[in-house]
């Protein structure tokens, strides 16, 4: 890192950062601060004034439904991250080779990235609902007796619909990151491994993947954090109960009894804390790995 000397430069940089930093401070830290305060019983606007209290957290921890929701939240976050990562690694390696139609492929795979999640939700509903296009096609082909006999994929706790939307949207994202990383890496280590007699699997496992690790870590980290805190996809495509923590928080927040809102804020705070902890653990494991390899 090159450090620029001179106060003028430093102050200039600070002032340059000010708009972004102040926006983040007010919107992000401000909202977080209010959630934490409310979750501890500071909500005079709803007639709750028991600050500081831990009853909202304690009642959550005592509720088996909370733990079930926490488990589901992890499940919906981790499964598509891992599956998506495997697909993306394969896809990016494929794209790194020359093949006919590569130009078109490079364009097409990125399309879901610019389409909002809600459009993905709508697509999944149109295609996979028990009255959706696939159900109707199977019905027309006499494979099922009526459209509603189509296997139920949406609005169940298994979360097929949720994970499908995540994959559809996130595989292109992870592929972009991995593919860009592959492009800037030189091919020399792979070529020398080949010359030294390594086969393709060995090259992938011992040369390419370890060199891709930084990109794998950063992209999967972003995807996991998003999935963990996502709301609208599980809200629309998930089961009524049980569902993710964010949906539980919304249910409490939307209750006509506003004194439930501090409990909703306790959930929201826990979501932030837990996903923050996960990132911390993940990153420190990554650091340990890099140290072991002597790269740090």
């Amino acid at each position, binding site marked *: 890192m090159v450090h620029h000397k001179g106060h003028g430069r430093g102050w200039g940089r600070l002032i340059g950062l000010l708009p972004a930093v102040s926006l983040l401070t007010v919107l992000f830290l*401000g909202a977080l601060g209010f959630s934490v305060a409310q979750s501890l019983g500071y909500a005079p*606007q709803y*007639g709750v004034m028991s600050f500081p209290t831990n009853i909202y957290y304690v009642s959550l921890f005592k509720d088996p439904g909370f733990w079930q929701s926490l488990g589901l939240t992890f499940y919906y976050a981790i499964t598509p991250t891992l599956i998506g990562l495997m697909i993306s690694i394969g896809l990016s390696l494929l794209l790194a080779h020359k093949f006919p139609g590569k130009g078109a492929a490079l364009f097409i795979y990125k399309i879901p990235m610019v389409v909002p999640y809600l459009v993905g939700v709508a697509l999944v509903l149109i295609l996979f609902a*028990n*009255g959706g296009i696939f159900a109707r096609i199977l019905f027309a082909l006499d494979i099922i007796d009526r459209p509603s006999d189509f296997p139920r994929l949406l*609005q169940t706790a298994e979360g097929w619909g949720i994970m499908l939307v995540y994959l559809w949207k996130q595989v292109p994202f992870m592929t972009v990151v991995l593919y860009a990383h592959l492009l800037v890496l030189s091919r020399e280590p792979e070529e020398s491994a080949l010359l030294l007699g390594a086969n393709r699997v060995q090259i992938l496992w011992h040369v390419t993947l370890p060199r891709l690790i930084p990109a794998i870590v950063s992209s999967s980290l972003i995807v996991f954090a998003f999935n963990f805190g996502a*709301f609208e996809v599980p809200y629309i495509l998930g*089961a009524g*109960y049980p569902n993710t923590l964010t949906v539980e928080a919304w249910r409490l927040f939307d209750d006509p*009894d506003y004194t439930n809102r501090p409990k909703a804020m306790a959930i929201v705070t826990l979501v932030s804390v837990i996903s923050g902890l996960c990132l911390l653990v993940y990153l420190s494991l990554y650091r340990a790995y890099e140290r072991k390899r002597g790269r740090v």
Partner: protein
Amino acid sequence: MKLKNLLASAAIMAVSVYATASSAADEAAAKFREDFLSGQLSWSDVEARAKTEGEVNWFHWGGSEKLNAWIERNVVPALAAKGITLKTTRIAGTRDAVDLVLADKQSGKGVGEGSVDAIWLNGDNFYTLVQQDALFGSFADKVPNAENFFFDPADPASQLNLSDFGTPTEAREMPWSGEQYTCYIDTNRLSKSEAPRDFEGLEAWVKENPGRFTYVKPPHYIGNTFVQTALYAFGGGYEPFQKSITEFTPEEFAKLVEPGFNYLRRIEPYLLGGEKAIYPQNQAANQALYNNGEVDMACEFGLYFVSNQIESGAFSETTETLAFPESGMIKNKNFLAIPSNAPNPAAAIVFANVMAEVDLQISKLKEIGYPLGVDMAKLSEDDQARAVAAAPKHHGVTDAELAALAVADTNASLVKVIETIWGDYIERKVEMPFLQIVKGAMEKAAK
């Protein structure tokens, strides 16, 4: 979307906490409120002040183009004749207006200073405003058109006006429209003769046709009402459910509702989705299931719902309303409420009075199929005949059948307990004796 609401509410909350609560109340408006509520003002005083205020801000659900057009054609000119400009805010969810009122209130805005003059609402949203002490006061029985309503607590006919999903209205909101909980079937898929007529019939039918029925998930009010209807059927009718929860011991209440909840548990494996029953989140999702042919029967509020849906093409021509269940169909009204921080309180009162006018009520029934909010028996014979002639036609039932089966809504203090019990006993299947679940729900409600 909901997320946007969430963010908006969070932002409003943030602002409201910052705002200083130094209430420099509009003194003239405060005096008007006091004088009007204590009956010291003549109606012409109110109308004169309304004219100087000059506008009224009405927040209403704007999801129906027919309704919006009807308002433009009929309500706007009626108010213009009184020297008042109607400013409507069309909202997707009534909760948005309630949140705005509460945010204004939190930032210290009193009568004459807020941003909402009137809200079309009922049930939960009214309950929230009552809980937060954010209503203008008992105005509905003090306007000239109050004569179109029963407001005497001693008269059982007043029940629909004095109780909003069981919350006592105390005339803090003006009845505007009425509804009845009805179920509908597609006679192409389920013939009228095979359709269930009561809950025993429903059980027999779903056992033969598993997966062909479900109901909206409580605590959504559409789902709550289905549960209440079932509890009525197995708990001796609607009368026991008019009492407040404080009049019950947990043992008594458990005894009253257990047969109904056992019924709901019994039919669950035969609902849509089978072992993992699927309860749609709201009436739109339920209608989609019905239109997709996933269920053959569905229930929601709407006396003329089926005729309106058929007319707009949203339902098949073969859809019919069902007189289900014979044990009683819950009926209630929806209202116009004035918040405690209405910026134009006199104009809001004049507005509520205009909306209760017989001509406007009949036009609403005739043109958009919204049932009368005024009470038939209070109208002149002429008006009654006009109202009967104006009503849209029913499909599969008669007015007399529907009227004969109509029963009162549940006391609101019970609704909270019932929805908690449903959550524990049906949805989460908490492994506790039923009495224990009821005790927990009652304790939670008493907090």
